């Protein structure tokens, strides 16, 4: 008599079912990149979830140790490739702190404009793909139509659509043209009414709400304990936004609200992002209206910068959360150490707790609502 049969004989009254191990990803279309989640399921219910990362590891943190500071800005583009402008910005802020560079006001304003445009592009991608995850295909096409316009704006100003390398040490790559400003204003006028359409198409669709409002609940306490940031944290009702709490690049001059969720459900996190798009439009309008004149790049940026020994930390509110860089210099032409505090990596960690007890079909809804970019998780 084998061991299993002996066990079964001891519990004759309850039907014993085996748990099953299922791989979700890394090729699953809804994992938004190469993420593998090892799910242990009991019937439809998940009893254990282990996110497995590392499929997109390119070692940029180590690579930065043998590259110059100007070269590192190119590396930063490759972390969160959906919103590369905040990546550029955070590295430049950290390096400028080390070098003691003063950024001209016009460059600061342009950085804000680009970061907010990039936030729009990133949240539009989230909005579209989250709809697909849940089963609504139409919003995706509408979101990508607008996203394409933003990418066109980026292409017009810096020549790339994803890996911009636009924000440079001491300023930005190049000044914007009056045509670009006119086109951006035109886009904003076009975009504002579209947000109401998105609400009709997806946000307040009862089927979508029924799918997302009850699952993936994260309490405020849990969100803070797991170190969430960005819309995932604010969806749980915690009012923390680096743009408000530790302003950089002149964010203190702009008037905007921080949208908050209530219960921390998937829908709250989703709607936080949609509301953030509204706030981004507000910031953009203000920034474009009061764009200062003058230089766009600081003078005295060395071709091969060798900042004095020391360390610096800078953080920005990226599209996915609190993106930070810790930079150590030993006086050489390349950083001694660069560490990235990637919001996606921290947001991903909570999956192993909140997936447990949900059904397999809800995994996709929860995974999508956390909005990770695997390029940033693995770096």
């Amino acid at each position, binding site marked *: 008599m084998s061991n299993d049969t002996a066990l079964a004989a001891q519990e004759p009254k309850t039907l014993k079912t085996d748990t099953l191990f299922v791989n979700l990803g890394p090729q699953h279309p809804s994992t938004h990149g190469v993420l593998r989640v090892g799910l242990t399921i009991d019937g439809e219910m998940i009893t254990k979830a282990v996110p497995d990362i590392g499929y997109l590891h390119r070692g940029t943190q180590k690579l930065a140790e043998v590259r110059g500071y100007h070269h590192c800005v190119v590396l930063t583009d490759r972390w969160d490739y959906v919103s590369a402008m905040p990546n550029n910005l955070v590295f430049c802020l950290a390096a400028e702190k080390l070098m003691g560079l003063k950024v001209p006001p016009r460059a600061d304003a342009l950085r804000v404009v680009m970061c907010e445009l990039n936030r729009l592009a990133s949240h539009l991608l989230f909005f579209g793909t989250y709809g697909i995850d849940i089963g609504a295909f139409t919003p995706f096409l509408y979101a990508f139509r607008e996203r394409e316009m933003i990418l066109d704006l980026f292409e017009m100003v810096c*020549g790339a659509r994803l890996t911009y390398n636009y924000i440079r040490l001491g300023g930005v790559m190049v000044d914007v043209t009056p045509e670009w400003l006119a086109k951006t204003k035109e886009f904003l006028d076009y975009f504002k009414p579209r947000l109401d359409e998105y609400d009709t198409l997806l946000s307040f669709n009862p089927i979508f709400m029924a799918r997302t409002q009850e699952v993936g609940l994260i309490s405020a306490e849990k969100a803070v304990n797991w170190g969430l940031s960005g819309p995932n944290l604010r969806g749980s009702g915690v009012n923390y936004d680096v743009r408000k709490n530790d302003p950089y690049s002149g964010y203190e001059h702009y008037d905007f609200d921080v949208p908050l969720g209530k219960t921390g459900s998937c829908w709250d996190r989703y709607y936080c992002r949609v509301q953030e798009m509204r706030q981004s439009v507000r910031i953009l309008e203000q920034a474009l209206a009061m764009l200062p004149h003058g230089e766009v790049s600081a003078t005295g940026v060395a071709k091969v910068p060798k900042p004095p020994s020391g360390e610096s930390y800078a953080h920005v509110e990226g599209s996915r959360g609190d993106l930070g860089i810790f930079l150590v210099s030993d006086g050489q032409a390349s950083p001694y150490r660069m560490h990235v505090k990637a919001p996606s990596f921290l947001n991903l960690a909570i999956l192993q707790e909140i997936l447990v007890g949900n059904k397999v079909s809800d995994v996709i809804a929860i995974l999508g609502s956390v909005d990770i970019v695997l390029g940033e998780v693995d770096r």
Partner: protein
Amino acid sequence: MTGYFAKVFDHTWAIMKGMWITLKYMLRPSVTVHYPTEKLVPFEKFRGALLFDAETCISCNLCVKACPSTCIQLENATNPQTGKKIAKVDWYTIDYGKCNFCRLCEEACPTKPKSVWHSLDYEVLFFSRDEMVRCWKAGTPFTGKYWDRKEKAFKDPLGQISIQDVPARR
């Protein structure tokens, strides 16, 4: 029972509202472009595949230093009589497999017009690994040649399509 019908009505009404939005856009002109029969021309500043001109290059090595992924290599030409280095390039290679399309090399280039610059070509493709490494010498076209290791010969790249010929962006 009334709750059930209210729910059915709510969902149907939401679908109809959504359909109304899509219906409005159905009657407007299409925003998509039927690639590859129609092609968009990128904006003037677009960072496409790199081109190189061996005639204007002064072999100053600035692009080599500016490149974040060390994909550029070059060798100075020498004067055959005196054996001294001259401000001309003997050979110049770009490894497209490593290129980041970041424009740091173009910005570093001191010559006018630029010796290395980004074209508008976004349709560069490679049929072999050899083709990724483009080489230039005096008299080579801007798109360069590649060294076929099997046949031991320089060849014109097959995957280079010049996008500048297609009509301008709408």
